[in-house]
């Protein structure tokens, strides 16, 4: 019988339906909004529909992210660390270091060759909010998320910017904008700054290859580029599934 994994994030809610053979039958991503229960309910229904599975046929539902409080119909809870670890190992078994960057939280997880979590680190408060910072910057620069990532690749110059915290960073971005720095360079500066903060978390673990980047920000090619530079090594992103659904996959796996 199939199982489900549900990840209610601060920005996006993700649901995965998985068959007994560990095959992903469907996934759904939806904006979380303020009524978490309603969203998780809706996303779940839609995922069932897409997978063509009836609700009664689901053997077990495991929730991660905000957990059961937001998805009361779930049977069990899994922490985000475990979810990220399991999901990452599933999509790329050679992964030893998982770096997840979402809207509000970032985390790094170290795995052994069997996919067990060996150590983990979370963003300190002042380093949190990477994804939503990007969202705000996209608005500032009046570009689309895709353009924002692309722009960074066109920069010819790296402008140092402090990313100690997104609040500080915002005022630096404003300063840059007002001194007529080209958008490409600003985009690069922002990406570098976030990568810098995220790398700082990952460095608490002794980073080993392969490094897999998951979470919504793994869409952003500018960010991937900055991460590679910052860590001085190859950084992979999931190929088959969108990067933000990996933890939901992890949750589904633990339901099997």
């Amino acid at each position: 019988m199939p199982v489900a994994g549900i990840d209610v994030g601060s920005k996006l809610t993700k649901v995965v339906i998985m068959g007994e053979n560990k095959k992903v039958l469907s996934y759904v991503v939806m904006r979380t909004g303020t009524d978490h229960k309603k969203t998780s309910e809706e996303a779940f229904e839609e995922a069932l529909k897409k997978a063509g599975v009836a609700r009664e046929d689901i053997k077990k539902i495991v929730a991660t992210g905000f957990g059961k409080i937001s998805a009361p119909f779930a049977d069990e809870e899994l922490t985000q660390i475990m979810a990220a670890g399991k999901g990452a190992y599933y999509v790329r078994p050679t992964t030893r270091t998982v770096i997840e960057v979402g809207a509000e939280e970032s985390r790094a997880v170290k795995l052994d060759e069997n996919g067990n979590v060996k150590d983990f680190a979370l963003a300190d408060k002042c380093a949190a909010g990477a994804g939503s910072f990007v969202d705000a910057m996209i608005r500032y620069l009046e570009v689309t998320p895709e353009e924002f990532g692309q722009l960074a690749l066109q920069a010819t110059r790296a402008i140092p910017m402090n990313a100690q915290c997104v609040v500080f960073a915002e005022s630096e971005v404003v300063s840059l904008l007002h001194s007529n720095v080209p958008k490409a360079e600003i985009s690069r500066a922002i990406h570098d700054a976030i990568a810098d903060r995220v790398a700082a978390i990952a460095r608490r673990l002794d980073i080993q290859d392969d490094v897999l980047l998951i979470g919504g920000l793994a869409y952003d090619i500018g960010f991937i580029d900055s991460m590679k530079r910052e860590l001085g090594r190859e950084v992979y992103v999931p190929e088959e599934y969108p990067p933000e659904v990996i933890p939901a996959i992890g949750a589904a796996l633990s339901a099997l």
Partner: protein
Amino acid sequence: MGKNVDDLAQLKQFKEWFDNRHEYAKKWKKKTGGKVVGYYCTYVPEEILYAAGVLPVRILGSHEPESITRPYLHDMYCPFCHDTLAQGLEGRYDYLDGVTLAQSCLHMRQSYFSFVDRVPNIEWDYYLPFPHGVTNPYAADFAKHEFENFKAAVEDWLGVTITDRDLDRAIEVYNKNRELMTKVFEMRKADNPPITGLHAMYMVVSSQVVDKAEHNEVLEGFVEELQDVENDREIGTRLMLIGSEDYDKELFELIEYGMNYPATFVFEENCTGARYFWGLVENGDDRLMALAKRYVYRVPCPAKDWARGDFFGRRRFQFIEEVIKDYNVDAVIIAQMKFCDPHELDIPALREMLDNMGVTHLHLELDLTQPVGQFRTRVEAMIEAMGEEDLFI
């Protein structure tokens, strides 16, 4: 028509030393075959190292944001200590043979420990206990005792004996450097000071990273030349800088060269300014005691400057008060590294003192990079508040 300070060869030399401090040290090593020791706090008695033929260089940062130190130093430790450690981890101090720290603030201590542990080329390290209370009558005795140990450790490491003559020579060189820099600072009392804060920063910080004897030669010429300098810049508001170490070009450039209103620093009180070199060693028979007294009685770092028994003031404040009067300071900029506890602990009292003196002041929190726009607004607004009566019609 007088000369312009920016054209002086000596100033260019200071700037070149400042910008290429690592290359300088490497060349020095090649030339002399001597050892280079990095020091973490300006309470290290450099003379002892110098007497042993070592080149002491101050460990400084680069003002580039980095994440490499975050696994080792807590986020709420000051940016300076992160920045300095980062330089070590990046391999920019690969020419250092040793590193030392005189007990100072905790942040620097933590940075120092990680530096010792994690920078591979360090063959010698020394943690020098130094009195934390410089208002203590027994502090000089104790400092002398620790300096003895320090000297013995240096001798042991290098397999040399530091003779009294070596010490005398080192003290002489260092005193001369102090004297000359004090002379330059004193010229800034003039209505039209020959140098700006940026120039002063180049001069003082370069002296922290090059052979003092060499620095002295250039300094002598500088003092000479400054007599004829007549800048065409508008001096504007006479500013004093108070606070943590600050060698960020950008800040000086912004305030002295980049604002809507003219303003010039006439004094920097911090440890990349006057606190570093103010006060001579009064040498005598007991060299180490003379050194101990110099370091204990110099203008103190706020980390060490506290009430004790009958002494209730702050020695540093007394100094600041004098400078404000002597240098005709119009306004004070308190520029403190973010999270710097020693300075933060003094700020409420410092503000109160300045208020009582009727001196305008502004507080800026420094990071590795600065939000230039915000700073500009604050400083300009401070200056606006001080004048321009005729705009209110």
